[in-house]
């Protein structure tokens, strides 16, 4: 079955690539700058990633309308890695070697990014990664425009503690790397802040888990001990709907035990019955409901581009918006699309984000962002109930994990290192 599927994926991928290559040979003139779009258009991740592909096409179109870049038109080269992790690496290689793209915008899951990373480093390519992730990585060739744990998870927990007076914590997650790392960081943070071990409950479930009866009933019992309790959810994708339904059916409302989720956004809410979720929370760096001129313009442009009034915008789309504009600005400053020149020029570049402020690229290849907490409304939108007073700089290496708290990342010369150990004073990690 597995083999069949892979074969199938590779075939479709190859077919699309062939047709695309043919197309670009026909139309590509020497005076265009190519931008690679590496998002799955088929397979299990297509639901989320197709939207990002469309976002990139829109951004390229907008830039061309403004007169392109360095006097040349931009050309988006779209490939389909088909939700197949090894295929991400092959497609990235193809984009850089065959298509000679100036930069790649792509990937969603951490495993797909990890699969692309060695190719980028070997061929000295550039990639902008737009999704919130678990941190613990900093490459010269990747720019992380999504949130690191300190730009999503930790502010969310601070909000629950300070604003809602939460004292007991149920950390529920799907069993893979992002929830496990995030929960490790959160557990360490909570312990540092004086939360006793018996006030933290950690539980992992398989992908697509649908039977939440006993876990929700455990959470209910955990929350009935007199201390205000909250659930911090890194539950992924399809498992969320049955989870929230079970919460609603067992009579747990958002004012009893609020759930703050890191993987539930507008796009995920657009396909489900939101009644059981109303009042629960999500932490992101952007919501469609953000009240700003830039956001209103972005939404209008998006709805017009996609031709469907019911579509939504979400956080990873904003990340691409920021990342793309940063790249454009860096190329203008450098006067070339050469990787090393752009990597140098982009540090410190600051562009408007959609929440009414500016985001800047930092030496560790992460960006500064505000953190917003939103409550789910019955129309599938979020009501913003809290935001950080200022911008939060992304931290590549968490200060709350034993292996990584001594590491820093700084890609400015003379350090130029993604994992510099401040204790041993050497580049290359290790403690």
């Amino acid at each position, binding site marked *: *079955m597995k083999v*069949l599927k892979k074969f199938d994926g590779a075939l479709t991928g190859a077919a699309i690539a062939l047709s695309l290559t043919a197309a670009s040979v026909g139309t590509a003139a020497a005076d265009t700058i190519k931008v690679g779009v590496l998002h799955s258009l088929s397979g*299990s991740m*297509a*639901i989320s990633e*197709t939207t990002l592909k469309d976002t990139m096409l829109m951004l390229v179109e907008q830039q061309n309308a403004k007169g392109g870049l360095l006097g040349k038109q931009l050309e988006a080269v779209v490939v389909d890695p088909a939700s197949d992790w090894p295929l991400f690496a092959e497609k990235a290689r193809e984009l850089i070697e065959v298509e000679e793209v100036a930069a790649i915008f792509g990937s969603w899951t951490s495993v797909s990014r990890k699969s692309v990373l060695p190719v980028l480093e070997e061929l000295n390519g550039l990639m902008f990664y737009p999704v919130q992730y678990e941190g613990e990585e900093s490459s010269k060739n990747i720019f992380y425009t999504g949130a690191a744990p300190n730009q999503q998870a930790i502010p969310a927990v601070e909000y629950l503690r300070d*604003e*809602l007076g939460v004292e007991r914590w149920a950390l529920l997650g799907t*069993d893979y790397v992002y929830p496990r790392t995030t929960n490790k960081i959160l557990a360490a943070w909570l312990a540092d802040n004086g939360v006793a071990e018996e006030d933290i409950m950690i*539980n*992992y*479930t*398989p992908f*697509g*888990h*649908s*039977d939440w*009866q*006993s*876990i929700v*009933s*455990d959470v209910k*019992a955990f929350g*009935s*001990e*007199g201390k205000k309790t909250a659930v911090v959810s890194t539950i992924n994708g*399809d498992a969320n*709907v*049955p989870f929230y*339904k*079970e919460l*609603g*059916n*067992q*009579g747990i409302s*958002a*004012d*009893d035990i*609020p759930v703050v989720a890191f993987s539930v956004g507008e796009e995920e809410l*657009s*396909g*489900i*019955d939101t*009644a059981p979720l109303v*009042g629960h*929370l999500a932490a992101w760096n952007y919501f469609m*409901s953000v*009240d700003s001129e830039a956001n*209103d313009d972005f939404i209008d442009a998006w709805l017009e581009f996609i031709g469907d*009034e019911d579509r939504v915008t979400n956080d990873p789309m904003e990340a691409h918006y920021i990342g793309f504009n940063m790249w454009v600005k860096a190329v203008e400053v450098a006067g070339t699309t050469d990787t090393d020149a752009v990597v140098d020029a982009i540090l410190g570049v600051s562009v408007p984000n959609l929440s009414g402020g500016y985001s800047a690229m930092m030496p560790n290849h992460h960006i500064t962002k505000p953190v917003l907490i939103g*409550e789910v*409304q*019955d*129309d599938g939108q979020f*009501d*913003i*109930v*809290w935001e950080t007073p200022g911008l939060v700089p992304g931290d590549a290496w968490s200060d709350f994990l034993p292996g990584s708290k001594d590491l820093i990342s700084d890609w400015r010369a003379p350090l130029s290192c993604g994992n510099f150990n401040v204790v041993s004073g050497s580049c290359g990690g290790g403690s």
Partner: protein
Amino acid sequence: MMNVRGGTLPPVFFQRLWRAVLLGLAVCFSPVQAADLPDALQSALEDLAGRDKVLRLEAVERIANSGTEESEALLQVILSGELYHWKPEDRFVRGEKDGRKFILYALEDGAELATVGRREAKKVSINNTLRGAVKSALATLDLIAPDPAKRLAGVRAQFAALAVPVERIDALLESESDTAVRDSLVTLRAMTLVSDETASGEPLMTAIAALGNSTEPGALTPLKGRFERSDDDAEKSALSSAIKAFESRQARFGMVKQVFFGLSLGSILVLAAIGLAITFGVMGVINMAHGELIMLGAYTTWAMQQLLPGQPGVALLLAIPMGFMVSASVGMVMERFAISKLYGRPLETLLLTFGFSLILQQAVRTFISARNVAVSNPSWMSGSLELHPMLSLTMNRVVIMFFCLAVFAVLWWVMQRTRFGLQLRAVTQHREMARCVGVRSRRIDTLTFGLGAGLAGLAGVALSQLGNVGPNLGQAWIVDSFLVVVFGGVGNLWGTLIGGLGIGVATKLIEPWSGAVLAKVLLLVAVILFIQRRPRGLFPPSGRSAGDN
């Protein structure tokens, strides 16, 4: 304004009546009935729209305690999230979302004001803390509501905050006639006393004992809280025995609950597997498209809800026959034109049905949407069924459990008591002999596959009430379905029933110890070991039908 005959009614009746009229008005014309918003409310709303969280919380209290007749209706507007700030006019209004526009109504008299775009209307958002404050303010108003059910809800809403003073509870108790409300008030009184630091002596001891015998789940909180803070030995021992009594009762109900959870999971497994028990178990077709036949049933439910908007319950009931027929027809077409050509060649059949599963998935992606679709629960399938204050079972699971038993009973009746069932058994037990006595075995094959596929459709209708409905729905159930059928014994319906329920209960009993991930692993290992020992499953077929022909 009101013509009341007879003059013997107590004054409290009029108070309640007046409140009922007010409530009725509030429901009919949600915005308040007054010429102008009183200054007190206006200034409170300004604070509410601000950013200072302390001021915002105070604003809710100020509205609740303003004593104005608009306050209750205004709180309802705030709670429903319909309060907007109309930016160009700098005015507070009630807004209704209409597509991407907002229709604004005056708070004072409900008159429609304008229809504006997203940029002009700013929602006055409320967070959980404020929502809690509004709810408790409304619940306090409910304490004197005329409807006993509403009063009961009002009292129960106080269990978390315990903000009502004991004297007030005593006053309420005096005028209360409904026993259920009285009982709740007594519990509330005891909880308030136990959490009151200044309470001591005899009344406190009585309250502690009362909570120890209480069935209200929230009763444990004040007991534990006081136990941690208390330094009085007599008090501590009373508290500890009350906590022990409460917890042991809770543990007994907890056990019952685990078994129910297991049976519920089991009944879903049985539903998902029962169609496969026919196509794979009885007919021997390794049907990889079984999951997609389930998915078709779920999409039928969605389609019915689209056809009957606003009637999710009726749509769901109609989806039961429709889901059966849709999946059965697809199944029969598959059998007639493809699978029947490959009988006796299991490996090719496997590949063929796997192909069907891919085709069906992609068809749904192409013609409906790659994204999940929303299927809503009718009201009688949401919430819980409270058998006892300590034991409430979720309605959707209870309904699905009975649905599963009903499906099984009907299937059993069809197999054992109808002519079709007789012919079906005859064909599967001895095809040649059945043909000799005039059974049209080809036709029976098609109908049998249709029956199995239709049952998968029924499972889909039920599953649409539990989780996502999307193109990948079937993939999640195919492995579990095969597991149940193989474990229960191929070709035996009772095996499927007992096997499914057994796997469900076992999973739920392991889960608290091991976690959900390990429970799944352990269960798979256990089933593999079991199949090693007994390759024919729990209920191996016996007699002539056991023959390998």
